[in-house]
């Protein structure tokens, strides 16, 4: 009758041994400083940020910025082709991130305007508004793609920056279906610096200076109150950070060379031994830069970072593939700027929505408290099971311990993250595991009370309770799955632990517990069951 028993027991021993090695031994080795093979270490249980300490930043990508950049450059492109086709126009203004307006097209040039505008018709819809005014609106599909791209590109840039910072095992993930990104930096405590590095847009542009420096009013006066359409006013760097700038420059709107042309950026010193950032350009960028600097010797070139002029040196000669940015850097800020330039600019600015810092002591406290609570709970349950169910209690304890060992092992193996609520899920799994055993034992007791033989009582107990367990576990799984679906971070950890725990529990309470009974029954004719 029990011919498969040997295999069943062997399976149980192997399963427990394997999961113990994967899930429990690495934790013990870590705590007691035992040797740990690298293969096991790579797979050891991952701890959430709330347990190991670190910084979590939740941020939103202001994708409107990226749209506005595209809309602006498209409007400039149109301006260029209008100029080339000698079409007169009044005004070109960017009205919103996705729209710009062209005003004052003379009636007789309307068809020429339409031809020029056809160039950008793939991305923008043209809406005539009468009296020579047109509104161009970005197509919805283009808008959606651009927003997607902006978030993805931000994600990649942040990833590069975080890696340059030298954080181990950073997690940078996009929230599904929106423009939010969660950045987790384990072990980092200097939030301000991390935020600074991550959030710097770092859009670097080289633009020719047309006028300045001077105050806003003085510069405007030079142009009789209104700047030409292809020029813009940019503030110079403030003498103290955070203060509004006092000097302004008038520069060309279009930047010939931008940060995208950079091949390399590294901190260094300038001729006065002040910190500076050295850069090298890619070949295409070098060509453009050579042309720009060669044609404009004697003029000033503004180095614009995030819409602020860092410095505006005079072009002394033709510059091709190398250059230097200097202007009031400290060694650290030069280093940071080089880092952000290397990792590329962000396509849009960022807004921080939440920030959480778990210091090293808080995480350690949480782990200690969680482990103690789990052990106290486990011991209390074990003691009760032994007293109340006598020898059958051992059966329940083996099943329970197997449950927890397999749970830890599985979590480590699949790379699930253990969080503080996860520990609570762990404790709850113990409760569910005990419930399964109690259900089975109480049923066996009932069957025994109905004058059934030991063997029949045990079989009936397991087979009858199986359906109950199936129903309860499926119902619990349903709620755990929704918890996972709608939860974030630590709560997901809880749902993960609970779900895996439920699956494992079905195995241990049915398979393991029953095999142990069968083992007991196979040895001899059991006259009475210790339950």
């Amino acid at each position: 009758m029990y011919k498969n028993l040997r295999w069943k027991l062997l399976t149980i021993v192997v399963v427990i041994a394997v999961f113990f090695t994967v899930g429990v031994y690495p934790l013990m080795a870590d705590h007691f400083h035992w040797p740990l093979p690298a293969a096991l270490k790579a797979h050891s249980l991952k701890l959430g940020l709330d347990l190991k300490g670190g910084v979590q930043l939740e941020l939103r990508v202001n994708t409107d910025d990226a749209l506005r950049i595209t809309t602006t450059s498209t409007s400039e492109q149109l301006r260029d082709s209008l100029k080339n086709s000698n079409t007169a126009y009044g005004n070109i203004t960017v009205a919103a991130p996705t729209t710009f307006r062209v005003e004052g097209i003379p009636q007789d040039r309307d068809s020429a305007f339409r031809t020029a505008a056809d160039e950008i018709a793939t991305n923008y819809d043209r809406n005539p508004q009468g009296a020579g005014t047109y509104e161009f609106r970005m197509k919805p599909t283009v808008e959606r793609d651009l927003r997607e791209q902006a978030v993805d590109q931000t994600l990649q840039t942040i990833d590069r920056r975080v890696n340059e910072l030298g954080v181990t095992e950073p997690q940078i993930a996009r929230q599904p279906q929106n423009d939010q990104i969660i950045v987790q930096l384990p072990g980092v405590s200097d939030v301000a610096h991390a935020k600074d590095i991550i959030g710097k847009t770092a859009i670097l542009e080289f633009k020719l200076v047309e006028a300045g420096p001077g105050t806003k009013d003085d510069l405007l006066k030079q142009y009789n109150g209104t700047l030409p359409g292809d020029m813009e006013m940019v503030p110079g760097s403030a003498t103290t950070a955070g203060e509004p700038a006092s000097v302004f420059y008038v520069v060309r709107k279009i930047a010939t060379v931008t940060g995208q042309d950079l091949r390399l950026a590294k901190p260094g010193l300038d001729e006065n031994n002040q910190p500076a950032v050295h850069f090298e350009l890619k070949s295409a960028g070098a060509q453009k830069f050579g042309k720009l600097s060669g044609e404009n010797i004697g003029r000033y070139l503004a180095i614009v970072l995030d819409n602020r002029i860092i410095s505006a040196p005079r072009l002394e000669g033709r510059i091709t593939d190398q250059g230097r940015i200097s202007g009031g850097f400290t060694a650290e800020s030069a280093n940071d700027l080089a880092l952000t330039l290397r990792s590329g600019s962000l396509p849009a600015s960022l807004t921080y929505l939440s920030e959480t810092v778990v210091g090293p002591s808080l995480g350690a406290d949480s782990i200690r408290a969680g482990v103690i609570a789990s052990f106290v709970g486990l011991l209390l349950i074990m003691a009760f099971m032994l007293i109340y169910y006598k020898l059958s209690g051992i059966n329940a304890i083996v099943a329970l311990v197997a449950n927890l060992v397999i749970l830890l092992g599985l979590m480590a193996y699949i790379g699930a993250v253990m969080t503080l609520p996860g520990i609570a899920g762990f404790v709850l799994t113990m409760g569910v595991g005990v419930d399964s055993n109690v259900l089975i034992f109480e049923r066996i007791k009932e069957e025994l009370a109905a004058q059934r033989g030991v063997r029949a009582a045990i079989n009936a107990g397991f087979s009858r309770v199986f359906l109950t367990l199936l129903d309860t576990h499926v119902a619990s799984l349903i709620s755990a799955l929704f918890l996972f679906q709608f939860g974030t971070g630590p709560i997901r950890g809880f749902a993960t632990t609970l779900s895996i725990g439920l699956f494992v529990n079905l195995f241990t309470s049915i398979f393991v517990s029953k095999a142990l009974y069968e083992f007991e029954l196979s040895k001899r004719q059991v006259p009475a069951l210790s339950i």
Partner: protein
Amino acid sequence: MHIFKNPNFDFIRWKWHAIALSWVIILIGAIGIWTKGMPKGVEFSGGTIVIVKFDQQPDLDKIRASLPGGGANAIVQQYGDPTQKQVMIRVHSAGAETGAELSATADQVTKSLGQAGLAQITGHCLNASATNCIAGTEIIGPTVGQELQSRGIMATVFALAGILVYIAFRFRFSFAVGAVVATIHDLLITLAFLALFKYELSLNVIAALLTITGYSMNDTIVIYDRVRENMRQMRRDDIASVVNAAVNQMLDRTMITGGLTLLSVIALYFFGGEVLKGFAFTMIVGIITGTYSSVFIAAAIVVIWQGRKPLKVAPAAPAATARKSGKRARAS
């Protein structure tokens, strides 16, 4: 060993009393929440928490007085074990959600501690033994808070709907209604207790509430399962006796499971640390009310619903059950 030797209590007789008692508790809780509002954790309301580790035992009142605005709306309390000299300062506001402004309030809090001469906070603690530093911060802007709130509600609604469908499919519709009403009852009772004991609705508490959903269902299904089994064997009895028999047969199991799970969450309450306190408290209340509601609400609703109709064998009895019980009938 038995807790109850052949129990034969008439639980169903007390159903209306029990329902009345539940209503009273829920109403008290509702009035409490109505008048004083349900306190929400920063995760939901948005705000700033700064946990500061001092080098000597600080005076909480002085800390409060040093805060901007005299700490009118702030919560200042000991965090964790007193020997750790940690204080949690919570302000109901965060910096603006523009750029990196979010942490402005937190910076203000630490600055004001220094200005009041309490401690010069040097920044975040770099290791576990550092003092006069920030052990942890949690700053949540309003956007995230609102999102979490709607997510929590969605999770609860979907979980309940999913379970309603599952139980209706496995048992009868009246059973499903009973189980869902019992679970909503448990959530309301637990919320009432949370409000009375001034626990905040934090993310961990929401997790506990959802766990209670699962636990309450678990308990209810175990009883239902026995009711379903009894319905086939006690065809001549009315539904009240069938349910009563089931509850009595499962009484030992109900007490043991409820008691042991309660033991482990009580361990969590006392040893699980500061962060899990709210979670553990919610679980303690939830387990007690979940056990109570599976008898007095879930089973009672089945009795009230089925009471006027003749008792029929479940039409969609799963094949496996039918076969098993058939075998048993032959054996005896």
